[in-house]
């Protein structure tokens, strides 16, 4: 009971303090461009009344879902293979390290040229942003695996695919889940950049469109708030993955 109070009450208090500080800061600066918390709330209400909030949230979630899941399906096997086979690592790792630091925003022109302005373009950008952290952490998970597990498995006569399935993959799983958690954060963060490509829906689009529409900074901040809240929910969901037995063993005692 106490723990629940802690986890709900404390953030609530911090939240209230933060909102008050925000309100006071805006009023004191006399700016009539930056919105107060109240104005942001009204902006959100306006979006809800117009039926836009749901549409935009769904659109962004749609793109992040496909882009991120594709990144997991590509990145985890790729990382496992690169971590295990030295020649594959030697051949491909330099290219991964070259591509990794290139911001998704830099890929926008390429995305438009290849995919136009349909949904595939932002999905591609989100995929790009997520696939590198996932691949790299899966790779590291295999390379950092305890040698003991490998030796024990080989002792029992395991090799090839069976070794992978029964030992290498389970041993690497906790670190893979960590990589997935980080990558999901990145994917959701990139949604604003990804939706700069002239799609006409989504939370990132809301922010950019509000900016173009004149003095609607209340909508800009409302978009930011929604992105932040959904990001929190996503993180909480991924952390539940850590409760599974196959993953829990790798996270130490609490």
């Amino acid at each position, binding site marked *: 009971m106490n723990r629940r109070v802690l986890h709900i009450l404390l953030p609530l208090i911090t939240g209230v303090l933060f909102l008050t500080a925000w309100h006071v800061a805006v009023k004191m600066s006399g700016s009539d461009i930056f919105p107060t918390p109240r104005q942001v709330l009204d902006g959100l209400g306006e979006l809800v009344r117009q039926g836009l909030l749901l549409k935009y949230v769904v659109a962004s979630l749609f793109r992040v879902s496909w882009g991120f899941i594709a990144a997991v399906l590509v990145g985890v096997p790729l990382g496992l293979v690169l971590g295990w086979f030295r020649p594959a690592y030697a051949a491909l790792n330099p290219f991964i390290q070259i591509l990794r630091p290139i911001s998704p925003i830099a890929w926008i022109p390429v995305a438009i040229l290849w995919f136009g302005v349909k949904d595939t373009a932002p999905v591609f950008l989100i995929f790009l942003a997520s696939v590198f952290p996932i691949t790299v952490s899966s790779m590291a998970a295999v390379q950092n695996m*305890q040698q*003991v*597990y490998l*030796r*024990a498995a*080989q*002792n*029992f*006569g395991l090799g090839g695919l069976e070794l992978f399935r029964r*030992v290498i993959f*389970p*041993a690497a*799983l906790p670190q893979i889940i960590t990589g997935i958690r980080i990558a999901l954060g990145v994917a959701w963060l990139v949604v604003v950049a990804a939706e700069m490509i002239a799609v006409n829906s989504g939370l990132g689009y809301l922010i950019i469109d509000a900016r173009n529409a004149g003095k609607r900074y209340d909508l800009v901040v409302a978009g930011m708030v929604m992105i932040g809240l959904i990001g929190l929910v996503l993180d909480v969901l991924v952390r539940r993955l850590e409760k599974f*037995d*196959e993953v*829990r*063993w*790798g996270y130490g*005692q609490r």
Partner: protein
Amino acid sequence: MSGLATITVRDCWMSFPGKEPGAEVHVLERVNLDVAQGEFVCIVGPSGCGKSTLLNIVGGFLDETRGEVYVENAVVNGPDPGRIFVFQENGVFPWLTVEQNIGFGLLSRPEAERAERVRHYIAMVGLTGFEKSYPRELSGGMRQRVEIARALAADARVLYMDEPFGALDFLTRLKMRSDLIRIWQAEKKTILFVTHDIEEAVQLADRVLVMTKRPATIQEEVKIDLPRPRDLDSPGYLAARDRIFSIMGMDAHGGGG
């Protein structure tokens, strides 16, 4: 089958590449040993002398630089399911339960047979009631029991044990030793056991092989012909222990001699 040794090591040398290019670290030289079927043999020696390296070579995880290693009349090329290595720590798979771990080597057997064997060995190592527990929920001693049960369940004929009780506390170690002897007497496996603890060697082994410092060779062999369980106060026990201490250049009260 009777006259031939189960494990034979002939003129084994082992070197590793050193820090500088071209330099080499010589770990083992001129190692010869034999282990007969069903024997319990311990290897003792100063810290870092290479006893674990030797065990890994016999187990098939390392390749000797020179020499020959035969186990069960065949040259050792790699590890084999019939000869299971028991590690000092972390040998048990943390993502599997106790019964999943113990059944690890048995996946090719039919379901009923596997369940029965697992149940039998869980009882033998005294872990009944912990079938669904995960290794992180067990103590160090219990984890080692799981590892031993896993090796036995898979029908290993030979056990290589690399300081398996080194990470446990004193009392647990005593208990594990007596349980191991009990199991060994019941299952009649061949055991090659590495330890730095001379008392442990004398409590467990039929023969104790004493190694020198690096580059190590087997300097002497001490036969221990005492009934088990061994009485830690008996003169035979103490004599054997002191003998080994003096071979290693120390007196019974510790320190150089």
